């Protein structure tokens, strides 16, 4: 049987159509479950939204009441011969229906902050991205070179890695209070948390990636007359760059996980501040919207970076030539055509 007609074949790529289909399903399935729970009556719906209070004195229109309580009250009303309340089955406020969240995705950006001087949603997002950017950049500026040194020289590996390994088991948020004491309540401690959360992992990951480079390449370079400095800059670094790039994409994901804690220490800010604020006012649709936005930002950065990666490392896959090469080829072709045309015209 052609392995391509099987859905489950060990280590076989699926046909492109199926891959795409599964990718779409991966998003549609959770959405379908969410929709079912939200829209199919009786699927869950443990609450009742009151639309007519009847004679129940503490009910209000729009109020969410647990179904049991609602039924009890109506039984009393019936026994007392009074008017029963009317309401429709409903989910708890913390699970808004998809269409409400979708609406919130748009309106959240247009809603004025609750109090004057507070940031708009887009400002909060921008603030978060900035914190991530600075934290991660700082981490990369120190972590990557240190990792490469660890992977290259046993000296650095022995003196740095045991300690780094020790610190990396301490959860970054544990440093929150300390960072505030050191760095104040503004953005500095937040950047520091992102830094702590990613830096120590990065040193170890980059160290390992560096060690995985084929030693024969280094030996070849040595027999060609390269000195230690040149081996690092002309063999090790270009040799690991594609893997390094992939490591960075994974670590960037870590940075986002630390963001939420980072933003809550000191003066809370950014997207987490927005989420907390909205939760406080029980605007759970905005909370969902914000969480989805984080996901979208993360995923699209990753897709973008992976796309870039495919084109800046042309030696990584045989068929694809670099985008720059392809662009120059295209331009050359076009200019040749133009020249031909002008030659024909004259």
């Amino acid at each position, binding site marked *: 049987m052609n392995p391509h007609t099987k859905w489950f074949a060990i280590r076989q790529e699926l046909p492109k159509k199926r891959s795409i289909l599964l990718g779409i399903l991966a998003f549609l399935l959770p959405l379908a479950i969410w929709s079912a729970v939200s829209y199919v009556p009786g699927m869950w719906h443990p609450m009742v939204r009151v639309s007519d209070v009847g004679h129940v004195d503490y009910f209000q229109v729009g109020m969410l009441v647990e179904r049991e309580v609602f039924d009890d009250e109506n039984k009393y009303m019936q026994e007392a011969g009074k008017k029963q309340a009317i309401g429709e089955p409903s989910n708890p406020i913390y699970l808004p229906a998809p269409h409400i969240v979708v609406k919130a995705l748009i309106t959240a950006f247009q809603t004025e902050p609750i109090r004057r001087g507070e940031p708009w949603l887009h400002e909060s997002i921008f603030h978060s991205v900035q914190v991530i950017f600075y934290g991660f950049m700082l981490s990369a500026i120190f972590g990557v070179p240190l990792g490469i040194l660890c992977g290259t020289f046993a000296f650095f590996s022995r003196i740095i890695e045991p300690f780094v390994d020790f610190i990396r088991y301490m959860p970054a948020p544990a440093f929150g209070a300390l960072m505030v004491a050191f760095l104040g309540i503004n953005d500095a401690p937040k950047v520091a948390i992102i830094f702590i959360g990613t830096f120590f992992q990065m040193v170890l990951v980059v160290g390992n990636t560096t060690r995985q480079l*084929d030693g*024969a*390449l280094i*030996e*070849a*370079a*040595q*027999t*060609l*007359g*390269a*000195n230690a400095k*040149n081996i690092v800059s*002309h*063999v090790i670094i*270009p*040799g690991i*760059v594609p893997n390094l790039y992939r490591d960075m994409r994974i670590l960037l994901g870590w940075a986002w996980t630390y963001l939420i804690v980072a933003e809550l220490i000191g003066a809370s800010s950014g997207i987490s501040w927005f989420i907390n604020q909205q939760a406080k006012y029980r605007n759970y649709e905005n909370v969902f919207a914000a969480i989805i936005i984080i996901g979208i930002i993360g995923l699209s950065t990753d897709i973008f970076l992976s796309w870039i990666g495919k084109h800046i*490392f*042309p*030696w990584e896959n*045989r068929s694809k030539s670099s985008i720059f090469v392809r662009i120059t080829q295209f331009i050359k072709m076009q200019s040749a055509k133009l020249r031909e045309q002008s030659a024909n015209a004259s």
Partner: protein
Amino acid sequence: MNKLQLPDYKTPDPEVAARFDRIQQRSVVLNVDHLGKVFSGGDGDITALQDICFKVHRREFICVIGPSGCGKSTLIRILAGLDYPTSGQLLLDDEPVEGPSPDRGMVFQGYTLFPWLTVKKNVMFGLRMTGHGKNFAEQEALQWIDLVGLGKFANAYPQELSGGMKQRVAIARALANKPRILLMDEPFGALDAQTRAQMQSYLLQIWRNVDITTLFITHDLDEAIYLADRIIVLGAHPGHIQEIINVPLPRPRSTDQFLDPYFLATKQRIEELIHPPVEDEQEILPMIRMTQSGDDIL
């Protein structure tokens, strides 16, 4: 079975013998002097090489042959400076060898082209590392790439080349530095038989056009005899020299020589050295059948 009547491999045609005399007159490029190597590991010491002595003359082609694990790679790695001897010494043009250097070019068994560099840049690598300007390096590189017949692939990445082509680039890359000696550790070991034969002819052609001393490791008898002026036959446990054989064949070599009586005589001798006859005393066991009985298999 009748044994072929073969000449004595030690008494070649006078013409060939005269050539050996001339080679002996040339200056010594590499002098391996009582070289030994002991690996000290957790579970005892392993003597990989013991008392290795030989001299390589200018523009000589030496093959080193021996059974697996006899220390061929260890020897060539020491010659390249990638490993160090635990006894004896190594002189290149009468200077002791210290670590790797571009005057001993190396071609490895595995593919060691830099995957992020094009063919041209791979060949330029050594020249750039040894302080040559970009333009000069490029000119030189293109010349070497042409010499190994890959002019069309100068801008290709190694991934786009076949195994044989990669090794040709590796040879060009090692030669571009104008080394005193070219060291090759089973460079064609990973290639299929046809490509391998092609590569051997290529190598001889290059060697004819380039003034280069070569030390070539192989475990293929035909390859060794076809290529070499002299063959160093190693034995195992510990790695030691069993015999150094002058190949009694004239140059230029051609594939016709594979059936030359001298070729066969040499091959027979090496065969004796590295595959000593095994006593044929194994009991004859009944055949184990893989199918139901009944079908005739005899």
